[in-house]
């Protein structure tokens, strides 16, 4: 029989059992739709991580305190006390591959302006911080080295803080706000950066000279972190080596003793985050693929039922001249039609899910053509693979017995 007639026959057979065909397709539909959705969510988060890490500055280096004590209670990195202004001075003096350097001291508390108040966090930094973290001043100016030296009570506000302390739209520049009990003069506002990958509002900050924060708020000589930028992205690794040796010398660590600090580059962070997100994508895709396989088994099952149900029809077709290959193709094409129709519906559902997800869950998605092509291909293969055995069974029937089958 000609292929075009076989396809018509398959369409007719499926139309006769619409509900059954739909239920059989369901496994494939869910499988394909979830594969595409998962892959687009994975791809989207990967791209947004890369974009936001790049926006933080691709040659940024983070130095965090860490513990080199093998036993005892482990503490959070940022609460450990190993980094001081002595380290900053040593690095400024010794590291040739570092362009800018800034400590970070942070504290959270209540900010107050007139009748308005807002819980936020204050970050004590050096002026270089803005350049390292790619933070841009929107209005006003950044404090100077002089302000740092004199522990001036000046600050810059992120957009969230501005919105909450100055709800009626007044310019905050020049106004006095309080953070806890300490008054600060607002000298600038920051360009909004939006939400970070970790769901943190990056605009909910106050930036002030680190000396002021240390003296007035944290009353500690230690830093939570040190940020530095390498002179170029390629110099990152050299900078890390320099930082390691300078800090080991400055901390008087003997050979064989572990570092009491950690140095991370942005590239490292990017690889780490990407590998996490790739692993999640791979896992989710694997789960979705299982549903594709189950869908395939569903097709196989229903095709076996269909062959048994239509044994007499097969017998008749054979008795009037259908060859084994005609019967095989008839059932195989029917199975492929089921899986491909399911695949098309699944692709459409997956694409719509990938379009709806960002607006509902605020997750970025990127639909990759490869995921569509792959899942469609997998569908066709599923149809052939799981449809083949029932079709083969049908083609091997003995026409005499098939005709008499009750």
């Amino acid at each position: 029989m000609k292929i075009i007639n076989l396809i018509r026959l398959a369409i007719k057979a499926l139309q006769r059992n619409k509900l059954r065909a739909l239920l059989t397709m369901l496994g494939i539909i869910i499988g394909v739709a979830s594969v595409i959705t998962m892959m687009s969510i994975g791809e989207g988060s990967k791209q947004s991580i890369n974009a936001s890490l790049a926006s933080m500055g691709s040659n940024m280096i983070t130095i965090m305190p860490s513990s080199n004590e093998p036993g005892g209670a482990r503490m959070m990195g940022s609460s450990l006390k190993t980094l001081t202004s002595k380290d900053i001075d040593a690095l400024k003096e010794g590291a040739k591959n570092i362009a800018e350097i800034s400590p970070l001291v942070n504290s959270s508390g209540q900010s107050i302006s007139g009748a308005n108040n807002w819980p936020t966090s204050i970050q004590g930094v050096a002026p270089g911080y803005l350049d390292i973290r790619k933070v841009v001043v929107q209005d006003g100016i950044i404090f100077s080295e002089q302000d740092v030296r004199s522990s001036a009570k000046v600050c810059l506000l992120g957009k969230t803080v501005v919105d909450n302390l100055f709800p009626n739209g007044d310019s905050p520049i020049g106004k006095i706000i309080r953070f806890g009990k300490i008054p600060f003069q607002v000298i600038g506002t920051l360009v909004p950066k939006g939400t970070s990958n970790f769901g943190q509002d990056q605009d909910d900050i106050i930036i002030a000279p680190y000396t002021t924060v240390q003296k007035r708020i944290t009353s500690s000589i230690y830093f939570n972190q040190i940020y530095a930028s390498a002179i170029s992205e390629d110099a990152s690794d050299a900078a890390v080596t320099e930082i390691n040796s300078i800090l080991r010398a400055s901390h008087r660590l003997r050979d064989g003793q572990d570092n009491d600090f950690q140095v991370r580059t942005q590239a490292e962070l990017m690889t780490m985050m990407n590998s996490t997100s790739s692993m999640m994508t791979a896992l989710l895709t694997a789960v979705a693929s299982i549903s594709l396989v189950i869908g395939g088994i569903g097709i196989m099952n229903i095709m076996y039922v269909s062959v048994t149900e239509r044994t007499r029809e097969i017998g008749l077709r054979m008795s009037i001249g259908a060859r084994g290959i005609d019967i095989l193709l008839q059932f195989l094409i029917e199975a492929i039609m089921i899986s491909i129709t399911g695949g098309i519906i699944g692709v459409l559902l997956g694409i719509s899910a990938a379009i709806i997800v960002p607006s509902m869950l605020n997750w970025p998605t990127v639909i990759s053509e490869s995921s569509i092509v792959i899942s469609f291909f997998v569908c066709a293969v599923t149809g052939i693979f799981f449809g083949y055995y029932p079709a083969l069974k049908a083609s091997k029937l003995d026409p005499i017995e098939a005709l008499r089958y009750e």
Partner: protein
Amino acid sequence: MTANKILEIHDVKREFVMGDQIVRALKGISFDVNAGEFLTIMGSSGSGKTTLLNMLGCLDKPTDGIYMLDNVNVKELSRDELARLRNTKIGFVFQAYNLLPRTTALENVELPLMYNPTIGTQERKDRAIAALEAVKLGDRFDHTPNQLSGGQQQRVAIARALVNEPVMILADEATGNLDTRTSYEIMSLMQDLNANGKTIVFVTHEPDIAAFSSRTVMLKDGRIVKDTQNTNRRSASEALAGLPVSDDY
């Protein structure tokens, strides 16, 4: 030589192996069928009638002996070649009609031609229409089997058997599911086809039906016990006219 021989059957045997036993269904059968004959094969159940029918229909091959259908030795053919032979040379009519459900009469009749790649769409349709008109169902093209009576369904089946212009129509108890009047109608149709030159082989166990044929072969225990020309052949249309008109209650 006289007429053109459609079937030549010489010492045909068919044995089945059931476990460690050999069942000999046909124990050496020989007969010829000429073009234009109307042959009935009779016999009680277990006589080898069905086995012979399957063989004649090229659904089965003899274990031993020679079966020539239209000068082709069936025994030497593969499964696919047998299918081709069934498609072009034989028209089957079954007791249970075996029409495809939810498929129109026209599509049912077109079916054998679908498996013949040399016939195009338009020719297929034209021939199916002609076949349905030949069995007087010219007004029932779009009816599905469940919209047709038993007799009409059997006529669709006969049209399907005719459509590929076979050398032989092979009927298996074709009137077995029908009442007397409808049986006679079908037999009358068969006689008309025979009169137009079709060779018909009709398997039945009803002597009543056999009386309409031109020749009867009687089987018993896998052998032919009687092979007679029917001198006193009845006309089905006359028999139909003779039936009392009391059926429509």
